[in-house]
């Protein structure tokens, strides 16, 4: 009876917020670690570390993100890897070949240190989950891509495209697989889903004449490539340069 009475009485008492307090708690290194949680995480951490540390290849040189003219050794290596590893996948799906590759310079997140190359190296180079996409562009649309590269003044990695700019940044030579770009020909351009969706202001991928999502992460491209080579040999060349 009392129980019921108290209950109804409580219901009639309307509650109000009388005070609100705010605190931001820093999760800093002065806090103690919960031993049970730490022990639970440990086997997962060790498994990952072991796998990431396993050696895939070797490099006698240290490669920084250093750019000479408009290309870098790492950028060239990554763009060439996207070409060589993605092309068989694309061909299997469509029966066609990739004509060129375009990535973005900002997408290379680290250098490669002299010594062993591991999966960890691939995670450092490419921490993002971006995947390879292939976009069909007409020669006319490729011109927009080339115009973008000529005014961006960045060493965006390319493969199978040659672009030579004069001292005023005008295009003096542009070729795909060594051939002149024809306005009405369809070219299959491999890039990342991030750039396809307008990342780094690359707005020239849409509209297009076709699109394929390869479900192949760029990081996995690198891991597969590292697995295939013994020693990394990456070089700066004349694929994208300015003649001063």
């Amino acid at each position: 009876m009392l129980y019921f009475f108290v209950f109804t009485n409580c219901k009639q008492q309307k509650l109000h917020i009388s005070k609100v307090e705010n605190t931001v708690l820093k999760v800093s290194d002065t806090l103690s670690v919960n031993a049970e949680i730490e022990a639970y995480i440990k086997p997962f951490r060790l498994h990952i570390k072991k796998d990431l540390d396993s050696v895939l290849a070797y490099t006698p040189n240290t490669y920084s993100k250093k750019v000479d003219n408009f290309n870098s050794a790492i950028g060239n290596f990554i763009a060439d890897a996207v070409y060589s590893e993605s092309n068989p996948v694309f061909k299997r799906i469509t029966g066609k070949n990739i004509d060129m590759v375009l990535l973005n310079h900002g997408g290379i997140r680290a250098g490669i240190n002299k010594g062993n190359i591991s999966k960890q190296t691939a995670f450092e180079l490419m921490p993002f989950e971006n995947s390879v996409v292939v976009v069909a562009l007409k020669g006319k649309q490729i011109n927009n891509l080339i115009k973008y590269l000529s005014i961006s003044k960045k060493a965006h990695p390319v493969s199978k495209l040659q672009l030579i700019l004069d001292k005023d940044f005008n295009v003096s030579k542009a070729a795909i697989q060594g051939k002149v770009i024809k306005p009405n020909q369809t070219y299959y351009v491999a890039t990342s889903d991030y750039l396809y969706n307008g990342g780094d202001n690359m707005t020239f991928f849409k509209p297009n004449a076709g699109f394929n999502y390869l479900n192949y992460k760029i990081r996995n491209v690198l891991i597969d490539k590292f697995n295939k080579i013994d020693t990394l040999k990456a070089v700066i060349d004349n694929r994208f340069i300015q003649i001063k």
Partner: protein
Amino acid sequence: MNRRRFIQKASAGGTLIALGNLGLQSFVSAPTTTKITVLHTNDVHSHIDSWKIAGKNKDIGGVARRANLIESIRKENPNTLLLDAGDIFQGTPYFNYYGGELEFKLMSKLKYDAATLGNHDFDNGIDGLYAQLPHANFDFITANYDFSNTIMNTHTKPYKIFKKSGIKIGVFGLGIELEGLVTRDMFKETKYLDPVEISQDMSRILKVEENCDLVICLSHLGYYYGDNSKKISDLILAKNSKNIDLIIGGHTHTFLPEPTVVKNLDNKNVLVNQVGCFGENLGRIDFHFSNNTAISGNGTSLIV
């Protein structure tokens, strides 16, 4: 689930009996205050281990430290809710190797009460998210993603009501538009519904129909996109809302030293909070409830 409900009811009954033992007189005349503590994280992005900020030698964040912090607060105040505003996934190899399994398992161990979904929680596709659900002992709350034509159908709730010492707390969730952030083959047939309209329905249900004492919106819309953007954000939502007391936000990795106070359609205060990212911080907001009308403020008044 039924067992959990039973325990909640049983403990609520216990409180009533205890109050009764104090005597009727004391109950009616003495003003009682109850403190509800809301703890929150957002955009933890798989940061399970502690990490270093570039250029600084300090080691910050980490789930094992957060666990102790939460435990000590729960000891101080059992009327505590622990919420996450989404983007649990993506950012460290833990996600690449285990697909979010460890993130959900640890959040369950930390006894999270609920989380909403962020765009990165779709990074392994809607199937990848669904596959990890068995590892989560907490509810996913989202009101503006219509999952009816997807594998996630019936696995999320638009809102959830928590009862802590007789106080009813309604929590509903809002997600960001996925188009443009996530490729369609990832989110599949997920339909994005207008967050403003949905939150009007939700807050009415929670405040008016369900009589909640506190209404919290768990949002992954983002804090604010600037005066030149019409993109829906927590600040714009707050302005166009009724009956929401607190918006816990995410997505923009915004660190707010204290919640932003926004006037809603009824000219009442709404608190908007967000605590950066990667588990560097744990947000804490304490709501003191009183049955004494003399000291009650006009809606929410923030005393920092």
